[in-house]
């Protein structure tokens, strides 16, 4: 009787381990698919940023990244008084 109970218990344990292992195999596959999806999303954002081309209508084009120049300009503009933006905006809207 005891041997039978031990056997049943062992079989239940084994089944539980098998279920856990199978669930994890399925989970691992899902995570792999998720990883590819996440790679794709990050890649899409980078690709969209790389493929954007500026419209330049007024000057000879310069094959450089405008964001670098703007960031330097923003550093200079950061030294303006705190009320500069509302004042300039009001002047435009007058």
């Amino acid at each position, binding site marked *: 009787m005891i041997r039978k109970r031990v056997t049943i218990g062992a079989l239940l344990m084994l089944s539980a*381990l098998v279920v*856990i*292992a199978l*669930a*994890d195999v*399925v*989970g691992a596959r*899902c*995570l792999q698919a*998720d*990883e590819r*999806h*996440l790679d*794709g*999303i*990050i890649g*899409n*954002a*980078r690709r*969209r*940023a*790389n493929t*954007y*081309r*500026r*419209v*330049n*209508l*007024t*000057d000879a*084009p*310069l*094959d*450089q*990244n*405008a*964001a*670098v*120049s*703007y*960031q*330097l*300009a*923003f550093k*200079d*503009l*950061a*030294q*303006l*008084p705190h009320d*500069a*933006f509302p*004042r*300039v*905006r*009001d*002047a*435009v*809207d*007058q």
Partner: protein
Amino acid sequence: MHSRVFETPSTNEPATAETTFRQYCQGIRSPHVSDGLRCTRCDWMMDVNLSEPPGAPYFPQTGILGHCLLLAGQLDQNAGNRRAAADRYFQAMAYASDLGQGSWPMALAGISTGKRAVRALAQLVSSVQDDALLLRVIRQELSLLQNATPSLNPGLSWDAAHLANHLYEIEYSYLSRQSTAAGRLWPWQAIGAWRLSPSMRLAGRLDAAGAAADLDQLRQLGPQIDMDGVPGRGAVAYALPPNWDALVQEADNVRELLSAVQMTVPLQEWRLAHGGYPASLPFDQASPGYDLSYRPSPDQHAYQFVSRTGAIVLDVNDGASQTRAAR
């Protein structure tokens, strides 16, 4: 380290456009700005860990630069130099489009600048009484701006990338739990996949929104994104800006206004040739998607463009123009 001295506003000096420009806008004459406006690319080098470009936030500098470009154009226009004014407005429009490639706050500044730039172009075009050559140039350049209005898509796309990066970290945390002996007795990968599932759907929707060319599609995706991002629903919480619908509407308004302004140029050319505006549109809609109604005044010295909802998008009256946003 260097410091800059800015001209202090005199209390006796009225705040005219000239004085405001002199006090706050000298920076737009710097080589950084002129070089930036000539560049062929604009990649803000966004960091997926932060969802912001390096050095951000740039507010209010983003707004100052755009509005200073517009102010420079207005001063040129007031001085009678319409060609230079048009150049400044086009530069402001291109800059607004550049801002739309960055994060949310940058896109907002881009929409604000872009709206005012298109409005200024409408004002400029309707004031041209004798310069057919300038109208031809503006018409050509406006056609190039068709797809260069500030957009909400890149901000969404970067949010999707930021979220994806965060989900990677969460996924890694589930994988690393398996490295211990006790961890192998529990299906952490299955639990992780289950926990990540709603957030994966959220990231996918944000990515789709980042690619959506149609603003109606963006409107539809908004509630779905907010629902997937509710705290506790998935591994991460996410919410679109609270004024999302208003933002999409603003982006739409800029496109609609640009569509109207594109039609003001041939109408102004018609006026130069015939002495008044035509009784009906003598050409097709610039953007059929907006289907603006053309309503000339009985004396044909004024007209309005009216949207499908009945809102006046542009009101041109004998050399003066008003837009919906300015009314």
